[in-house]
């Protein structure tokens, strides 16, 4: 059981940290630039694009075997509506599917992956499940939290045949944490009470437990991983946790796309995974760590298979990062409808 195909999508518009410096005197997030959904894009359209790229990278008839479609985002286009149902239709998946929406947390993308994984495993051979995650979190223009928020989407097709990366195991951890990034009902903006040190402690406890638990389940050491996908938490605070757990920078460097995309919320972990799958070779191992404020963490372990050699990869994240159209801060405020 594992990943059969994947796809990533970054919206074309991007804004640099320099623009924030010009507008506010400083950029509050450790980014070089970040991605911005255009005025006619949302988490539905970005999911469709990532999904189409994943499905274009494998035989066309596989779409007829998709039995589950899961969508993940902290900002679905509707607060009530089965978004995954619309996505299944938009991707040409027939109606006989299990459709699931995962939201309210930046670990929703990995929740959707675990859900589809279980779902496909129950069905037995031949069944496929599609995970679509897209995010474009928003905060108030006057809030420093806003500076780091980006946009993007990733899609993963899960199945039991022609697997390019085997799903080896997963482990979670959770506890009650108050005041860390949240959005109240009916509001369009996320807020954070900004007590950084206290929140980093909570993050290290919850996320650290998920990683340790996964290592213990699989009987592995951090050094056995070639790649580690880390979630952004106050920018780079996850680096400290990773070091303490025994990982080194070389393991997370290629998966750390935050400084070019911004915080992509629920799509972050699977976008980081896409960046890894773009370059990973058979035999290499990947750990993906997702974190949702409030708080929950989930770690997933994957091993790249020989099958990767004959897989025709989708457009790479690296190429997409080199492309794009730079916009200024005023244009940004307009297309994000913050003015």
């Amino acid at each position: 059981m594992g990943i059969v195909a994947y796809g990533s999508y970054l919206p074309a518009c991007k804004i640099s940290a320099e623009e924030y410096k010009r507008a506010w005197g400083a950029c509050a997030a450790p980014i070089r630039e970040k991605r911005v959904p255009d005025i006619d894009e949302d988490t539905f359209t970005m999911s469709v694009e990532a999904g189409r790229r994943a499905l274009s990278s494998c035989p066309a008839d596989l779409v007829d075997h998709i039995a589950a479609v899961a969508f993940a985002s902290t900002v679905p286009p509707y607060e009530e509506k089965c978004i995954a149902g619309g996505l299944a239709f938009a991707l040409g998946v027939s109606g006989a599917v299990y459709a699931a929406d995962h939201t309210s947390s930046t670990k929703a993308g990995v929740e959707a992956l675990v859900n589809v994984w279980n779902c496909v495993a129950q069905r037995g051979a031949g069944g496929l499940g599609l995970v679509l995650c897209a995010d474009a979190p928003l905060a108030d223009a006057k809030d420093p939290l806003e500076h780091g928020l980006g946009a993007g989407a990733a899609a993963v097709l899960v199945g039991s045949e022609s697997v390019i990366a085997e799903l080896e195991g997963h482990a979670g951890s959770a506890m009650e944490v108050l005041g860390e990034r949240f959005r109240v009902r009916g509001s369009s903006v996320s807020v954070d009470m900004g007590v950084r040190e206290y929140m980093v402690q909570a993050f290290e406890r919850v996320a650290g437990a998920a990683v340790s638990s996964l290592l213990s389940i699989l009987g592995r050491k951090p050094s056995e991983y070639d790649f580690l996908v880390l979630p952004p938490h106050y920018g780079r605070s996850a680096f400290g946790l990773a070091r303490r757990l025994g990982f080194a920078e070389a393991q997370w460097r290629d998966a750390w796309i935050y400084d070019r995309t911004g915080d992509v919320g629920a799509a972050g972990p699977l976008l980081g995974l896409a960046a890894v799958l773009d370059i990973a070779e058979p035999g290499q191992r990947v750990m993906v760590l997702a974190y949702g404020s409030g708080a929950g963490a989930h770690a997933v372990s994957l091993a790249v298979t020989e099958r990767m050699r004959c897989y025709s990869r989708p457009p790479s994240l690296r190429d997409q990062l080199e492309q794009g159209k730079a916009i200024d801060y005023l244009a940004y405020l307009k297309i994000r409808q913050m003015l």
Partner: protein
Amino acid sequence: MGAHIPVPVYQRSLAQRYLLVGWKCEECGAVTFPPKGVCMGCLRSTRFSPVRMSGRGELYSYTVIAGGGAPPEFSGQARAKGRYVVGLVQLAEGPRVIAQVVDVEPDEVHVGMPLRVVLRRIYEEEGVVRYGFKFRPDSA
């Protein structure tokens, strides 16, 4: 004056708007899009089977809509972007469709440029997001 499309009418055309499903003539093989009562290829046959088009094509002609010229359902987009491109797109399967051309500066648009379909928000009415096809430059 905007072109009001009631939700049930939009619902009936979702396969065209999301998936570019056209009608292929069972006699001459031409694809008619959007579906009509008679084949636009042979102008005789009324027997069709649905076919999902590739979404690839090239720009046949275009115009640039400036802020004041936008219909009301597109005024938000025109205000935010200043201007936008509307193209007549020659699809690989034959039909020509009118759609916005996105992810490109109006000054960089040229007739004959290869295009690929994308799904985008067209506008919102009655609280319902109307998604549909637009085209972006095809780099592949």
